[in-house]
């Protein structure tokens, strides 16, 4: 067991469980304390920005599902966020719905649109999905402006649209969270809603990836022919993956509407949103769940930092440069680098469940940390 790690744990052992409880417990405590820390240090405005990083992380997670796990290249996440945000806005403003009720409709709508856009490109190998989604992302803002069939009325057209229905915490929640009913303080309430929804999205996606369909998706990425020969229905799985990814974009759109209470087509374009999401994904780490959140944080906060430096025009060039440098020198992104560092500190030995052959033991908790036991 010469791993060089400071701490070596056997998977499933008591120590391993304690380790998981401690690390996750610390993480959750930190997540609960975070909005208060941000408020105390920088004011509620930064909590709103944190919320933005959280829901964009869900959008990047969707992008990651397609690009990282299924190996297809799709670049239209901006449009799906836009659809989610516009559907939410319209349902609330024109039909008097509540925010939470719009979630299934928005996710369902983006799923269907994703499938419809994806089907033709996904039947064929190659970069067709990339071409098609770039075109879709570029077209979407113009469609949202179409002054016909009530589209522009619902989306707000070129001016965008405010959502008058404000989110205010009920008084008992206010007392638990220790906030008052001023609009600024609601950012903290929204933080807990958005963090909860994002956590749910991450947890579901993680389970999806570790389940049978998830392994099928990864098999398609690694060897398309091999996957097909093993009985995986390629077009079906590819289309479903793209649809789920779009639905995650739709969920991010709902949270976008919640957080900013304003939607405008110019925010959902290819250059303003789709490319930054991709940059976030690559910085964070392709095909890692944590990468989505790391990339989103880097994009939202570093992007703001460069704008504050007065480098507004060049911030795009900076992101382009980062994109090229990361692709060249750190294809695993920040998370890939962190994992290498972590492997030196903590090492978890996989333990096959009883009655299962060792080769089938992958897929348990924290599979990313599992290092195969070296042959003795």
């Amino acid at each position: 067991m010469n791993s060089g790690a400071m701490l070596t744990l056997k998977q499933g052992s008591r120590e391993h469980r304690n380790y998981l409880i401690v690390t996750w417990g610390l993480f959750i405590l930190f997540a609960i304390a975070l909005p208060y820390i941000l408020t105390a240090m920088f004011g509620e405005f930064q909590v709103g920005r944190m919320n933005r990083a959280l829901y964009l992380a869900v959008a990047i997670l969707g992008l990651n599902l397609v690009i990282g796990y299924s190996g297809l290249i799709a670049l239209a996440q901006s449009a799906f966020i836009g659809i989610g945000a516009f559907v939410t806005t319209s349902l609330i403003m024109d039909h008097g719905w509540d925010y939470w009720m719009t979630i299934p409709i928005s996710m369902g709508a983006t799923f269907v649109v994703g499938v419809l856009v994806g089907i033709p490109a996904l039947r064929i190998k190659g970069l067709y999905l990339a071409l098609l989604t770039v075109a879709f992302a570029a077209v979407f803002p113009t469609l949202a402006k179409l002054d016909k069939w009530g589209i522009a009325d619902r989306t707000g057209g070129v001016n965008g649209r405010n959502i008058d229905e404000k989110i205010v915490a009920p008084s008992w929640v206010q007392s638990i969270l220790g906030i008052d009913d001023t609009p600024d303080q609601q950012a903290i309430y929204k933080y807990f809603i958005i963090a909860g929804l994002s956590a749910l999205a991450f947890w579901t996606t993680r389970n999806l990836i570790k389940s049978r369909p998830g392994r099928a998706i990864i098999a398609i990425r690694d060897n398309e022919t091999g996957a097909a020969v093993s009985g995986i229905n390629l077009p079906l799985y590819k289309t479903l993956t793209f649809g789920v990814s779009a639905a995650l974009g739709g969920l991010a759109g709902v949270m976008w509407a919640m957080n900013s209470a304003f939607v405008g087509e110019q925010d959902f374009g290819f250059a303003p949103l789709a490319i930054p999401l991709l940059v976030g994904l690559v910085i964070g780490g392709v095909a890692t769940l944590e990468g989505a959140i790391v990339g989103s944080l880097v994009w939202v906060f570093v992007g703001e930092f460069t704008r504050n430096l007065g480098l507004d025009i060049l911030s795009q060039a900076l992101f382009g440069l980062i994109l090229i440098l990361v692709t060249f020198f750190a294809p695993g992104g920040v998370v890939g680098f962190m994992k290498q560092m972590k492997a030196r500190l903590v090492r978890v030995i996989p333990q096959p469940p009883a009655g299962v052959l060792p080769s089938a033991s992958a897929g348990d908790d924290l599979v990313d940390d599992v290092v195969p036991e070296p042959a003795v």
Partner: protein
Amino acid sequence: MQLFLQRLFDGLDNGAVYAVVAVALVLIFKATTLVNFAQGELAMFGTFIAYILAVEPDDAALSYTLGWASWEVGFLPFGLLAAIFVAMAISAATGAAIERVLIRPFDPTDHLPVVLITLGLFLILNSVAGYLWNFNPRPFPSMFASGTDDFVSIGGARLRHTVIGTWAVMGLMLLALWFILTKTKAGLAFRAVSSNTESARLVGVRVGRTLMFGWALAAAFGTLGGSLVAPKLFLQPNMMATLLIFSFAAATVGGLDSLIGAVVGGITIGLIQSILVGYLGDYDPAFIILSLAVAFLCILTVLWFKPSGLFGTARVERV
């Protein structure tokens, strides 16, 4: 009838430009099965170089850093033509350098890194152009007579000299491309590589050099396309963004690996855009906004019914 002819001519005008940029896309796709997302921005940058060389040496920011660029170019058309040629040469060198430095290190069958690299280039070129020359649209001189009276009247519709000129340039470009690909050794190598990279390598074709040559050609033609369209769209860093989508549509409709297809596709997209959107706009002005959506629908339709496009080769995968 007059209106129809007018829209036909407009469509042919746009179509020629889409065709030129689509040819640039296809050149790269043919050789490497990659799509260069920075193609439009490279063309925009090249057009800015032509602008600086020909039009306003004193006004342009780059002339301060590149002192030699501030020479006075004599009278226009000729000066402009010379400037465009020089810009095309500079673009070609840039394209070749990009291939050598940024693209070649990656495995061409793994699409993601190359997509990321070209998108990164897209961001850098766009924002550096905005930083150097700001985002205000500038008038760009046309290579052809473009006064209000410079047109041929056919059936009451105006076939402008610029349209004829654009077509002439496109024809010349295709002729040059045909000559390069069929009559020169580099062209032969290019065709060998695009038909079968491994076999070409085995018989001694220097694949890397040939791909560099393809990128150089594509960048030069992109700049030509940019210079053709700049008088109409006005020169600014975002000039090529929408045009690139139309060119994607053109290349897909024609078949991503067919040069003839790119030309036919470009004209098709130009005509569909001008005629369909024109008549939809007569029906209700709100529909004018749909011209980009038409390009998207064209891509979608082609992928549904004939993924290889009108002239592309259907790929047969051996399992």
